[in-house]
C-alpha cells in the first residue's frame, strides 16, 4: 500500500478519535449532574459555611448553564487546570502527577508478566489441543479470570511478605529515588494484577492460533509438506501477533481499573488510592480529574493501537 494512503488512514483514525474524546470528557463532567440535591451544598458537606458553598458554586460556575459550565471546565482542563481538591486544596493536576507513576509502574510490570507467562501458555495450549497441557492452561485461565485480584493480593501478602519475608508487604517508593526499592515494592501488586492478564493473553492467543491453524491457508501449507511446528512458528504466530496488540490495549484498560483495588490492598499511593479517598470524602474535582486522566490515557492508547494495527496488518486500509 502506498505511503500516502497509510497517512490518510492515520489522519482518519485521529479524526475519529475526536468525538470519542469529547464525549468522554462530557461524561466525566456530566457526573456532576448525578450529585443529588444542590451540588454546592452536597459537596460542601455537613456544617459547611456559606462562604464554602459560594466557593464551590464558583469553582463549577453553577449559576451558569450546563453547557457553559462544561465548556469552561473543558477549556481549563485542556490547559492543565483541573482545579483544586476540596479537601486539601492541592491542585488536582499535581496530585495526579504525584500518584500516576506508582500506578503506571505496577501496570507496566503486570503487563510484562502477563505477556511473558501468557504467551508461552497460549502457544503450548494451541499446539497441543485437547492434551493435558491444553486442559491445564484453560483451567489456569478460568481461575485467573474469576479470582478477585485483591484477594490474590491479600494471599500474596500473607505468604511472601508476612510468612517468608521476601518482599515488602505494603507501601511504595518513587522509582526516581530508589529503582530497586520501587521494583521490589511493585512486584507483589503486579503479580496480583497479572493473574487476570495471564489468563486473558493465554486464552486469546490460543483461540486465535486455533482459528488460524484450522484455516484454508494452513491446510495448503500442510499439503505442501511443511512440518506442523514450522507452520505454527512461521505462519501461525505471524498472523496472531497483530491480534496480540488488541489484547494488550484491552488489558491495559482492564489493569488500570483493577489496580484501583489492588492499590488499596498494598497501600500504594497511586491513582486508585487518590480516587477512592476522593470518592469517600466527596472531593469531586479530584474524582473528575482522575477519571479524566485515565480516560485520556486509555483513549490515546487505543488510538496508538489502532494506528499500529493498520500499519502492521496489510489487509486493513
Amino acid at each position, binding site marked *: 500500500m502506498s505511503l500516502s494512503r497509510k497517512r490518510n488512514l492515520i489522519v482518519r483514525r485521529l479524526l475519529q478519535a475526536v*468525538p*470519542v474524546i469529547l*464525549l*468522554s470528557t*462530557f*461524561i*466525566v463532567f456530566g*457526573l*456532576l449532574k*448525578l*450529585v*443529588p440535591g444542590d451540588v454546592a451544598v452536597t459537596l460542601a458537606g455537613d456544617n459547611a459555611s456559606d462562604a464554602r458553598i459560594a466557593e464551590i458554586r464558583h469553582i463549577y460556575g453553577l449559576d451558569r448553564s450546563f453547557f457553559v459550565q462544561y465548556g469552561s471546565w473543558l477549556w481549563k482542563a485542556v490547559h492543565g487546570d483541573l482545579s483544586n481538591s476540596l479537601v486539601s486544596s492541592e491542585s488536582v493536576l499535581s496530585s495526579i502527577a504525584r500518584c500516576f507513576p506508582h500506578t503506571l509502574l505496577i501496570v507496566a510490570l503486570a503487563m510484562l508478566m502477563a505477556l511473558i507467562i501468557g504467551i508461552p501458555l497460549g502457544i503450548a495450549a494451541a499446539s497441543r489441543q485437547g492434551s493435558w497441557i491444553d486442559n491445564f492452561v484453560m483451567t489456569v485461565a*478460568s*481461575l485467573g*479470570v*474469576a*479470582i*478477585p485480584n*485483591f*484477594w490474590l493480593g*491479600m*494471599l500474596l*501478602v*500473607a505468604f511472601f511478605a*508476612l510468612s517468608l519475608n521476601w518482599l515488602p508487604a505494603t507501601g511504595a517508593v518513587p522509582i526516581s529515588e530508589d529503582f530497586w526499592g520501587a521494583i521490589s515494592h511493585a512486584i507483589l501488586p503486579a503479580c496480583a494484577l497479572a493473574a487476570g492478564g495471564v489468563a486473558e493473553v493465554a486464552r486469546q492467543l490460543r483461540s486465535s492460533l486455533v482459528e488460524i491453524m484450522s484455516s484454508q491457508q494452513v491446510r495448503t501449507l500442510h499439503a505442501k509438506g511443511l512440518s506442523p511446528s514450522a507452520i505454527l512458528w512461521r505462519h501461525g504466530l505471524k498472523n496472531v501477533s497483530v491480534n496480540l496488540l488488541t489484547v494488550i490495549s484491552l488489558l491495559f*484498560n*482492564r489493569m*488500570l*481499573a*483493577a489496580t*484501583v*483495588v489492588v492499590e*488499596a*490492598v498494598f497501600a500504594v499511593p497511586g491513582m486508585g488510592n487518590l*480516587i*477512592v479517598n*476522593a*470518592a*469517600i470524602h*466527596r*472531593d*469531586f474535582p479530584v*474524582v*473528575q480529574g*482522575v*477519571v479524566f486522566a*485515565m*480516560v485520556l490515557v*486509555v*483513549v490515546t492508547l*487505543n488510538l496508538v493501537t489502532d494506528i499500529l494495527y493498520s500499519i502492521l496488518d496489510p489487509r486493513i486500509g
Partner: protein
Amino acid sequence: MVDTAIALDQRVGRLSKFSKWFRSDLRGAISLTFLVALIVISALAPWVSPYSPTAQDFDATLAPMSLTHWLGADDLGRDTLSRLIYGGTASLYASFLAVGMAIVIGVPVGLLAGYLGGWVDEIISRVIDSFLSFPAIVLAIAVTGALGIGLTNGMISVGIVFAPQLARLVRARTLVVRNDLYVDSARCFGASTSRILWRHVLPNTIQPVIVQVTLLLAGALLAEASLSFLGLGIQPPNASWGAMLARAYQNMEIAPEQMYPPGLAILLTALAFNALGESLRVALDPTMKGR
C-alpha cells in the same frame, strides 16, 4: 384443548432437552447446581444461618474454626458462617441489580441503534465507544462519588458501566436480523416499529444476550466485592463478601484463616457464572450443535 396439548408437548420437549444438556455437560451442570444451591441458601438466610449476622460473641473474637463457630468468628465476635450466608444474599442481590440495570438500559439502546441505523446509530455507537474507554470500576467509583456511598448506588453505577457492553452486542445482532425476511414481512403487514422490535427482533438477539448476561453476573459479583472492599459499597454492620475480606485483611496477622471463606466464596461463584456462560454459549449456538 389442542393448544394446551401442544404447549404441554413443547414444555415436555424443552424439559427433555434440558435434562439431556444437563447430563451431557458436566461443567455446566455442576455450575448450575452450585448457583441454584447458593441462591436457595441466600434466600433462606434467616432460617439456615446458625446465628444472626450481627450478633456478637465476645468470647469468640477472631476464633478459629470450631463446633460452635464452624468457620470461626471475626474481630467483633460475629459468626463467619452466618455472615458468609447473609453476605451471599447481599452479593447476589447486588450482582442481579447491576446486571438488571445493564439490561434495562443496554438492550433497548442497542435495539434502537441497530434497527434505526443512520445518524441515531452513529451517535449511539460513539456514546458506547466513549463509555467503553472508561476503566469499568473507575467509572463506578466516580459515580458512587457523585451519588453517594452505598451498595445500591454502587451497583447502579456498575450497571451503567456494563450497559454499553450489552448495547454493543444487541446492536451488532440487530444489524444482522433487521433485514431478515420475517422482519420485512412484519413491516409489510404494517406492524409498528415497537412491535417489530419487541416481537421479531428482540427474540432473535436474545441468545448472545443470555450468554453475556451470565458472564456479566460474574463481573458484577467481582465489582461488588471490589467496591465493598474499598468501603464504597455495603456499609457496616451489613455483610457482603467484599466487606468481609476488608475486615479479615485488617486482622490478617492474628487470624489469617478468616480471609479464606469469603475469598473462596467469590472465586467459586464467579467461576460458576463464567462456566455456565461458556456452557450456554455452546448449548445455545446453533452452529455449535453436534460438536
